[in-house]
């Protein structure tokens, strides 16, 4: 019988051979996909998701089993991604990046910034794959984008998203409502 994620995590904590590889193989695609949805860059998404696996390896012993393993791991992963976004934002501010200004509803400059260099062929493929509505999702704040991604793509319930993002369920509802409201407004403006 196949081991559950929680059993594998405990085996990782006990440094049982093969447990970590099995867990990484089980979650690698989801981890990379979620990371990419947030950071929007292939190499950064690889780095973030691998960082999350490394933290999982180091912190497996602290998994108490009170939540699902997936919720616990997504929390590590999303924190890695948001930390990276914050660092990028910090560096850009440090070198005089234009701030959002007086328009609180205006798009975050970090979100509008061109992604770090990647293969032009990849970028073209990405453009072709990405619908207009997802291009608008990319202009949302990282927290709203994470909430939409976890909700729509990964099918997480509001309480699980709250656990992943370390916020209340009410805050997740606000993120989702504002995200969808912004998307509707921008799609309406373009129509």
């Amino acid at each position: 019988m196949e081991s559950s994620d929680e059993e594998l995590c405990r085996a990782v904590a006990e440094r049982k051979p093969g447990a970590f590889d099995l867990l990484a193989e089980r979650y690698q695609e989801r981890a990379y996909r979620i990371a990419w949805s947030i950071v929007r860059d292939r190499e950064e998404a690889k780095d973030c998701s691998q960082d999350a696996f490394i933290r999982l390896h180091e912190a497996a012993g602290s998994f108490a089993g009170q939540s699902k393993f997936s919720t616990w791991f997504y929390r590590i992963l999303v924190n890695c991604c948001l930390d990276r976004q914050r660092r990028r934002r910090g560096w850009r501010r440090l070198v005089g990046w234009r701030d959002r200004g007086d328009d609180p509803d205006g798009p975050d400059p970090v979100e509008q910034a061109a992604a770090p260099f990647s293969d032009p062929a990849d970028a073209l493929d990405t453009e072709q794959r990405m619908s207009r509505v997802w291009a608008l999702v990319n202009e949302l704040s990282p927290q709203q984008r994470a909430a939409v991604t976890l909700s729509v793509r990964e099918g997480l319930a509001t309480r699980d998203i709250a656990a992943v993002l370390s916020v209340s369920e009410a805050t997740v509802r606000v993120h989702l409502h504002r995200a969808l409201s912004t998307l509707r407004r921008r799609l309406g403006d373009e129509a």
Partner: protein
Amino acid sequence: MSDVHVDELLVDHARGELAEPERSRVAAHLAICAECRATRERYTALMAELQRTAPTPPSVHWGAYRAELRDRLERRGAAGPVWGWLLRPAPAFVAAALVTALVVAGWPGIVRGPGAPDPLALDNTILASQLDMIARLDVVQRLDLLEDFNVINELDELPEASKS
């Protein structure tokens, strides 16, 4: 309470995630509010579109991905927890040490300290030691400095005749 808009609960209501009593409250409000009903329909349609059109990330070779992950883990393990802790802040320590050295070297008050000699007094002492040589400048100018170093050392013992 059913006349209060329930915008932020509409996503959860559409996904069937609301528990009682919120579910009944939202249902009661939707029964009387056309605006919230329309918003709920728009959100439902938008979420369906997002699900249908979700972009695929650029492909990754998973074997290479796991090999890279394994390599990163091993490098971390090889460093060990203690060395890892020591090595990570090393660049910060080096930078801090350099800055401190530069500040100390460039700030005379810090180098000198309260008990150190005043550099101006030191200059005066050197000048005073050379006063004799300045007084006998006419002799000094006629000497080859390297060959007649002894003469310079004994300037004060020279007879008055040779002073002129």
